[in-house]
């Protein structure tokens, strides 16, 4: 569903992402991890069509993101780490507006169900200024899920959520993957990645360090057998002292 080939992003002389290639199949949850400044957010924003890669190709559901951006983006949903909302639209109006952009004809049916699922029903008429950080995050997720995307991009999805919200968010992500969506999830919370991701992509300084299921990664590094993902991550990124 998501195919990334030789993705490179340069900012002047700075290489944010370098020749990164990977894929996310339908029903798969890929965890994107790496130290600060590794290029995780740049990778996600490139796949979301927000920034243009310097080189490389991104294909979403068979649509080249550069050549058919509208068709490719129609299959995508990007949930950034920081909720970005229009401060003069209510929760309900956000869903209506996003539904119109994505051509969701049955928004009147889907929106209430999503509000119910994300426990935002009693906030439907509320402006973002009145919402807590976690509520804003939920609204961003609701907007992303409204058009039933085939590819989901999450950047630190648990930030600002309470324990109940964290549990529900994990369920939502797993449930979407079970229904056939490809999920790419970037997070520093390695226990989250370990818990819900089927495979892991570790990057550092814009380059791929390891890619595969945890078992596959450990198979390539017998010295790390039996260690947790956190220990594997520290060892692979050279952060272990």
């Amino acid at each position, binding site marked *: 569903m998501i195919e990334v080939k030789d993705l490179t992003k340069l900012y002047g002389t700075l290489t944010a992402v370098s020749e990164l290639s990977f894929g996310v199949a339908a029903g798969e949850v890929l965890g994107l991890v790496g130290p600060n400044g590794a290029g995780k957010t740049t990778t996600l924003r490139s796949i979301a069509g927000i920034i243009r890669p310097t080189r490389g190709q991104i294909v979403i559901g068979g649509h080249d993101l550069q050549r058919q951006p509208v068709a490719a983006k*129609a299959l995508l949903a990007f949930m950034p780490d920081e909720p970005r909302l229009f401060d003069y*639209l209510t929760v309900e109006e956000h869903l*209506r507006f996003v539904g119109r952009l994505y051509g969701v004809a049955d928004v009147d049916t889907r929106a209430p169900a999503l509000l119910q699922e994300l426990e935002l029903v009693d906030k439907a008429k509320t402006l973002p200024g009145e919402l807590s950080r976690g509520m804003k995050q939920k609204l961003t997720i609701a907007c992303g899920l409204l058009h039933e995307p085939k590819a989901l991009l999450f950047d630190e999805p648990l930030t600002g959520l309470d324990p109940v919200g964290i549990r529900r968010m994990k369920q939502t992500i797993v449930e979407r993957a079970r229904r056939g969506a490809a999920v790419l999830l970037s997070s520093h919370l390695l226990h989250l990645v370990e818990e819900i991701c089927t495979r892991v992509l570790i990057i550092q300084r814009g380059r791929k360090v390891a890619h595969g299921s945890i078992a596959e990664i450990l198979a390539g590094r017998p010295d790390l057998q039996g260690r947790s993902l956190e220990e594997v991550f520290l060892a692979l990124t050279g952060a272990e002292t």
Partner: protein
Amino acid sequence: MITAALYLSRRSLVNATWRRLRRLREPKYLVGFVVGLLYFWWFLYRPRGTRPAPAFAAALVDQLVPLGALALAVLLLVGWIAGSSETPFSFSLAETQFLFTAPLTRRQVIAFKVLRSQTSLLLSAILSVLLFSGFHFTASRLMRMGGLWLVYATLQLNFAAAAFARANLTDHGLTGWRRRAGLVLGAAVVVGLGWWGVRQALPGIAAAFSDDPAQGAAALGGALRGGVLGVLLWPLRALLGPLFAATPAAFVAALPAALLVLAAHYVWVVSSALSFEEVAAEAAEKTARRIDAMRRGRGLETPLPSRVRRPALLRLAPTGPPARAILWKNLTGLARTNRPRTLVFLAIFAVAVAGSLGSRAFTPLDWLATFALIFGGYAMVFGPFIVRFDLRRDLELVDVLKSAPVRGRDVVAGEILSPVVAVTAFVWAFALIAYAATLPRVTGLPPLGPRTAILVAALAAVPAFCGLLVTYQNAVVLLFPAWAAIGPDRATGVEALGQRILVMVGGWLALLVGLLPGAVVAAVVAGLLQVAGVPLVWGVAAGVVGGVVTVGCAIAFAVTWLGRVFDRLDPAAAGLS
């Protein structure tokens, strides 16, 4: 505490200056800096006519201290009565976080804030004097700077004391009008005492003014120096002494009394040990939100609070062109962030003034038409700059817009349409009011038919005019995001001023260039129609409509091009996110 305050002030100043200087390595800031400097040079050194001061003004110079003391007294009374702040100083969010949690006593926090604010007060005093003196440094200017700093510092402390007094009254259960009534009563006692002291001198002052204004000013000055009023105003006269000292010797002589007043205020404020942290923290958050809104180019618009929950003007259909959805979103935002009561008050005021000014020659309806034309003209010229519900605002959320399956052309079209629709609606309303108000008039204006033709031409021209201005500003935002007011890091300083001057001049040039093809088409159409025997005014109206269509085509072409720019825009490279 003193060293900490001095360290913070010194490092903040040094770091801010270095940051500005380093920024000049970028051409866009360097060009802006040069233009900004040229503007200041013109502002300060442009040729000014030198006219001798009138005799009355010369006489007033001698009475500056007592008259200034009276003015200060009025200012302080208003501040005590009308002020509402219960926090003695404006704290930044960082200050509330670090100072209020540090192991400092309340008095130490106040002392820190007082010392910290002296840098900005001194800079304000220096700039105020330099601006009025054409940037000439002389001994007398240095005295003025010192004197003005004393005044600023004392006023700041006085207002802080007023805030403490309000907080104290609140602590004792006196809030709202009851608190204000108490302050009014106190002020009335002070004013009554002053009046009682000066009442006997008033006939003499009035007589002196009727004889010679200079003598009147001298008599008034004498009254303000003597009696009860003289005693009441002494601290303020002492404070103003160094500022208006004519010689260095007079400055030195006046300094001890002024410093005494300042020291007394300092002791007064620092010895106040009332709790203010909670109110100060709330005020800091409000101020931060307001500054953030201003930096994001929303002017003095109040950040959207919870109370704004008006329903959307129109319901958005689930399907249809995405540009219309963006238009809907922006118009909803515009309706929610502006209060219609301002317009209602304006309308009532205009009708009332028109009614009172009306005469047989120029009736109230004529006045109403005049006001409508003035307001309409103002809305047309400044509306596209004021109504910023387009990319100037939405580029902050560029990630949301760019990740949506919408072509850049549709995004730009929807964004540009929003201010154009809003401003056009306003201007049309004013134009129609003016037209309707002039319907009864049969003399002094063209006949009704040509008048209608002019109205049609004007109505057609408005969206084209607004469209050009709004398109230009959105083009600047897309092509030179660092020059436009987007996001939280809006540039300030001389270089930013220069950039804004360039953008504004560019806007008017773009308007001229954009209108040119339309003007040519309008002239050709009007000429051809006149040859064909169509009356001139109708020919011109048809020409204007033709010109508007031409300008509309140019705008459509620009929107398509800007759409491609939007598609190619890299928010990270452009410094947007």
